[in-house]
């Protein structure tokens, strides 16, 4: 057997993790609202993210109504359409996915999976949530100010973002930038917390190489976010200054609608570099936690050890590092120096290698597994299909010259929705079906879950797969309407209508999921402590849902990696991380539980 399996029973360090002083809540407000318990904060993050995500979902319906049936809905004029696109994109990427993976799953799972009592800085952690909430509220406020939210596209490119030809130029853009700055401040507080907790508060025996991949994904993503968000922060501040004080960081001499403006000397491309220096890592900030979580879902529900754990960890870390040197693949046609194309195309395609390794290892985990098609597993499979699809079209867009005709077309929209829209959302759903029993003590209804999965997976595929072909045809993205052209055949309009109808159906399926979340709180089957018979620590808590401080009197001690499923010679098909040795071997060695 391999080295890893031997390592699994390695020695336990003697040093005790010092017991942590937990802030003790007094009364309802500090228990449920201003709570410093990471589990409550995680739930608060998740609910807030889902709520604002609903707004983004509704906006996507409105856009699809316009694209599928142009001119039918008179309240969707070009201004409104561009506002919908912008808010939809920004909410989905930042306020939903980033917040849900790191703030939601991160807060709930990091202490539990590592055998800690809580995050190391509980107060800062609480602050992080409230600042996030404030950021969301500022963002939402922009729907109600004169002129409405900004319509600059989620990339917020200047000069357009702050000139009058773009809707929301008065208030919307200011609120957007302020909200982003708040979000980043809040995230930085949470993020530092996650990193220090992972590095400092692991329980005895939880070596780095025994951590579940979920934690590796979240840890790496958090480190990346801490490095990437500052670029967006300075970009946002400078753009705000350009807008409010009339500085010219990003504004060259320009003439707007026949009027010479007072700007001069700035560089619009500089903003693009700052934006994508954040924006590309952002894709992986969303993807890496998804990679980690999906690995754990697959292993647990296939009852098989994750294949190639060490490769998986290295792949996560390497992807994280490389993703800081590929940002300008979003700028192949931006007018930057053409020689950059060689460099960024090469780095971009190199990232495909560790990414492919991850896909192989998921497949090889299924191979010779004992696959239970529970709802979380279905979502994990849906993730593999959509992620591979979107990853492969990334090889088109990353390969600089191929990107030239395809950039800024619907091909790009299809690509990024597959890879960073649908795929991570699959993991979020899978993760929710998987951990809901721990969070609430009840199972989500699996019949509703299966309907939810099939409609969402097949529907999303039917929306975004054909969309690539609209892009090949040459239909540009961010078009209010394609109108009259010589190259778009009438049949493409039928395709657009089809996509819109499917989008409405997929949206409706999400209502079923929300209903399930609420319904199962009372009517779900009783889950018990470990319904999936999983190995990781969060399933071994003395209470379900875990109580304040997670572990009762004593912290768990970890003896093995997180993937001891179907260990030869052990009758039960899983061995929890805190179980000293397989029962038989234990007798032989006479080892006692501490």
């Amino acid at each position, binding site marked *: 057997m391999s080295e890893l399996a031997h390592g699994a029973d390695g020695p336990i360090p003697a040093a005790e993790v010092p017991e942590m002083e937990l802030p003790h809540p007094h009364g309802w407000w500090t228990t449920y609202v201003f709570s410093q318990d990471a589990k409550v904060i995680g739930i608060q993050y998740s609910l807030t993210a889902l709520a604002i995500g609903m707004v983004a979902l509704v906006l996507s319906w409105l856009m699809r109504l316009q694209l599928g049936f142009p001119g039918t809905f008179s309240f969707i004029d070009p201004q409104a359409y561009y506002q919908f696109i912008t808010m939809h994109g920004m909410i989905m990427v930042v306020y939903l996915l980033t917040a849900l993976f790191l703030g939601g799953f991160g807060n709930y799972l990091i202490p539990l999976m590592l055998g800690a009592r809580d995050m190391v800085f509980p107060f800062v952690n609480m602050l992080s949530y409230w600042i996030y909430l404030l950021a969301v509220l500022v963002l939402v406020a922009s729907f109600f100010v004169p002129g409405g939210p900004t319509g*600059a596209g989620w990339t917020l490119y200047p000069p*357009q973002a702050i*000139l009058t030809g773009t809707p929301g130029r008065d208030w919307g853009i200011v609120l957007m930038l302020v909200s982003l700055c708040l979000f980043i401040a809040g995230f930085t507080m949470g993020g530092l917390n996650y990193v220090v907790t992972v590095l400092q508060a692991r329980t005895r025996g939880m070596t780095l190489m025994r951590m579940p991949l979920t934690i590796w994904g979240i840890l790496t993503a958090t480190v990346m976010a801490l490095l990437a968000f500052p670029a967006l922060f300075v970009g946002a501040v400078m753009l705000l200054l350009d807008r409010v004080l009339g500085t010219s960081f990003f504004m060259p001499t320009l003439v707007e609608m026949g009027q010479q403006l007072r700007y001069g000397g700035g560089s619009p491309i500089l903003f693009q570099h700052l934006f994508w220096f954040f924006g590309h890592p952002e894709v992986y900030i969303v993807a890496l936690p998804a990679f980690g979580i999906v690995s754990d879902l697959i292993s647990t529900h296939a009852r098989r050890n994750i*294949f190639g754990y060490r490769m998986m960890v290295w792949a996560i870390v390497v992807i994280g590092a490389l993703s800081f040197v590929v940002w300008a693949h979003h700028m192949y046609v931006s007018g930057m120096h053409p020689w950059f194309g060689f460099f960024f195309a090469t780095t971009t395609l190199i990232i495909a290698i560790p990414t492919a390794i991850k896909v192989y290892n998921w497949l090889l985990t299924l191979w010779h597994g004992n696959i239970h098609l529970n709802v979380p597993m279905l979502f994990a499979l849906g993730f593999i299909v959509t992620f591979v699809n979107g990853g492969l079209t990334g090889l088109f867009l990353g390969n600089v*010259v191929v990107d030239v005709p395809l*950039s800024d077309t619907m091909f790009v929209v299809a690509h990024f929705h597959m890879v960073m829209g649908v795929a991570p959302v699959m993991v979020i759903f899978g993760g929710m079906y998987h951990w809901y029993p721990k969070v609430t003590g009840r199972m989500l209804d699996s019949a509703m879950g299966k309907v939810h999965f099939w409609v969402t997976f097949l529907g999303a595929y039917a929306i975004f797969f054909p969309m690539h072909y609209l892009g090949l045809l040459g239909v540009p993205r961010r078009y209010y309407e394609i109108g009259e052209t010589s190259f778009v055949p009438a049949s493409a309009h039928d395709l657009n209508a089809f996509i819109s109808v499917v989008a409405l159906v997929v949206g409706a399926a999400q209502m079923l999921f929300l209903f399930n979340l609420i319904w199962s709180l009372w009517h779900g089957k009783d889950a018990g402590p470990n319904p999936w018979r999983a190995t990781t620590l969060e399933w071994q808590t003395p209470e379900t849902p875990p109580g304040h401080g997670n572990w009762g009197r004593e912290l768990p001690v970890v003896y093995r990696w997180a993937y001891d*499923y179907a260990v030869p010679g052990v009758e039960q098909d899983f061995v929890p991380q805190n179980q000293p040795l397989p029962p038989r071997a234990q007798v032989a060695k006479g080892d006692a539980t501490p």
Partner: protein
Amino acid sequence: MIVALIFVLVAVGSVVFHLLSPWWWTPIASNWTYIDATITMTFWITGGVFVAVVLFLAYCVFRFRAVPGGRATYEPENKRLEVWLTVATALGVAAMLAPGLFVWSRYISVPAHATEIEVVGQQWRWSYRLPGPDGRLGAVETRLIGPDNPLGLVPGDAAGQDDIIIEAEDLHLPIGRPVKVLLRSIDVLHDFYVPEFRAKMDMVPGSVTYFWFTPTRTGTFDVLCAELCGSGHSMMRSRVMVQTAADYQAWLEGQRSFAQLANRK
């Protein structure tokens, strides 16, 4: 088993869709057939991988589904398999990257004898400028732009006097002659996009960007803007007519130069 079958259908359905799709790129009208060839090749490689992955997934779901008394095999690692897969992937990636970079080097090396023309974008219309008999475009400055100098030519520059200015009309190009398209914007980002030419590039206020191509087919082609530029973005249209040398010459005679336009005022 149904789940495995559905995944097979997703893979097969995608291939069938690809083969039968009436939506495919518009016939090319420039020299960039290389780009199309690279895309086609990328389609084959990635399509093969996609189908293989999804079919393998479906196979696993079918073959290794949970059965009473079933049990997985314990195998944490398999170095040989992992190395083998990594190398194969690296080769596949290199097979796509190499031609891609080769074509890119063509894309960015403009032939010495290419004619320079200029496209100017502004919210939300296109203007064009062609060099006059001297074959050179005169200097421009954004701050000189005004009602009687819409493109901001420097009045004192001799090279600019014979430049042909085309406002609110179609651009005409002769077939078979390479053109270097200089791109300029006077307000926000735009992107000069003609699907049939395949080539495109953003226009950035404050700098001049470019791309080159050779028109290879006569006809009239739509010009669209491919970079969000405000609420008129999707309405920012124009057309390019690619003509035979004789037709082009005839059209050119009817156009007015910067000096002629200035004198009329």
